[in-house]
């Protein structure tokens, strides 16, 4: 998995990317959330992929998750 190459600018990660990235220009760079087999298949094809060690939000508490979705930026 590619390590952070350059030091990200000190901007806080509050600003979300403004312009959407193209999907079909060049090989995809993938974040895999779920079955890790997919990440391994992509890595085997030499694709840049990062696996998220996912777990249900708010430890699966549905009410908290709903509150979070209304509050998270």
């Amino acid at each position, binding site marked *: 998995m590619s390590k*952070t190459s350059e*030091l*990200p600018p*000190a901007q*806080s*990660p*509050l600003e979300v990317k403004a312009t959407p990235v193209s999907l079909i220009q060049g090989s995809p760079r993938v974040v895999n959330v779920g079955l890790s087999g997919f990440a391994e298949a992509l890595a085997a094809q030499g694709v840049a992929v990062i696996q998220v060690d996912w*777990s249900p*939000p*708010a*430890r699966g*508490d549905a009410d*908290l*998750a709903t*509150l*979070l979705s*209304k*509050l*998270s*930026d």
Partner: protein
Amino acid sequence: MSDVRQVLREANAEAVRRMLAAEPVLIDVVAAADAIPELGEGMILHAGPPISWERMCGPMRGAVAGIAVFEGWANDLDAAAALAARGAFQFRPNHDFAAVGPMTGMTTASQPVMVVENQASGNRAFCTINEGLGKVMRFGGNDASVLTRLAWLRDVLGPALGMALRSSEGIELKSLVARGLTMGDEMHQRNVACSSLLLRSLVAALASTCGNRTILTTILSFIASNDQFFLNIAMAMGKAITDPVRDIKGASVVTAMSRNGTDFGIRVSGLGDEWFTAPVEMPDGLYFPGFSAVDANPDMGDSTIVETIGLGGFAMAAAPAVAGFVGAGAPSDAAHITHTMREITLAENPEWTIPALDYQGVPTAIDIRRVVETGIAPMINTGIAHREPGVGQVGAGVVRAPLACFESALWALGKRLGVT
């Protein structure tokens, strides 16, 4: 983007800006009563959220009895304890008076406190002087040796330090901590580098202002022998940095984390002075020979103010030796802990960087929304006190802030922003 989320984004951006813009400087040492005018007869400030005598743990009670005798409000420990039980003393958290204190965190009128001023916003924060290791007041020690040391701090070390600091323009702490980080300190369990850097910048002023050679020798050897001397200064610095971040409407950034040996409490910028508490957890760590988990006292102290500004457990990657020592895994795991803390913070402090992470800034500004969403609780490096008063430190380890504090804070923030 709905207006609530807009409010949150702007409020948190302001909270982060204030936290990173702070300019903490150690300027003076004065008697606590001078720094905190409300600190009168029979008033005892303690670590952690508010707590009554009945619910206090062993070491906290030991410290209260000891300090009452020290201040002359009772002539022996039993009398002091009886007075406390009868409600003769007024117990308030350090945090309500711009103060912090390690472990039991006793702050009373005559004790000397170090003064750190945040020159970006003008506020000041206070913390007593670190007594060193072994049988000490912060671990609930209260025998004659403890009280004599406190008297020496009050009568000799405090005034001398104050004079030395006043004779110079004070010690700028941000760059000192930056160097400490590159030398393996994380400012909670390990302060040996910063303590040495501090002594270097104090020794000339001390020599010139302290005329008496024998007193100077005792002062220098006391500071030089205490690896954790800088801890109390780091804590006052943390308080000076976080106080201006309080009361920003709609901000979900944590401004205080603290424990009193019974409850773990947090405060959040957008929620005023309300404490969100949960039962404190047991640290998990390594014990000095002859001690084990059965001897440990539950987690205690205002020292988690350093984690609140991105140091301590959050800067574990800077101090692999600590990771190994406190049983938080192999030194190579230290980086993992800092990476994980980045999941629950909004920013990285560009002035406090960690060489092992290609000079990435320490993870700063804990966001209660991210804590609740990821289920990752802030990781705290802590000393472990013996559960009987007066024995002292029995180990060091790591402890997690209870998630319940952050969940109840999130519900409160939702209510305050009209979101249920």
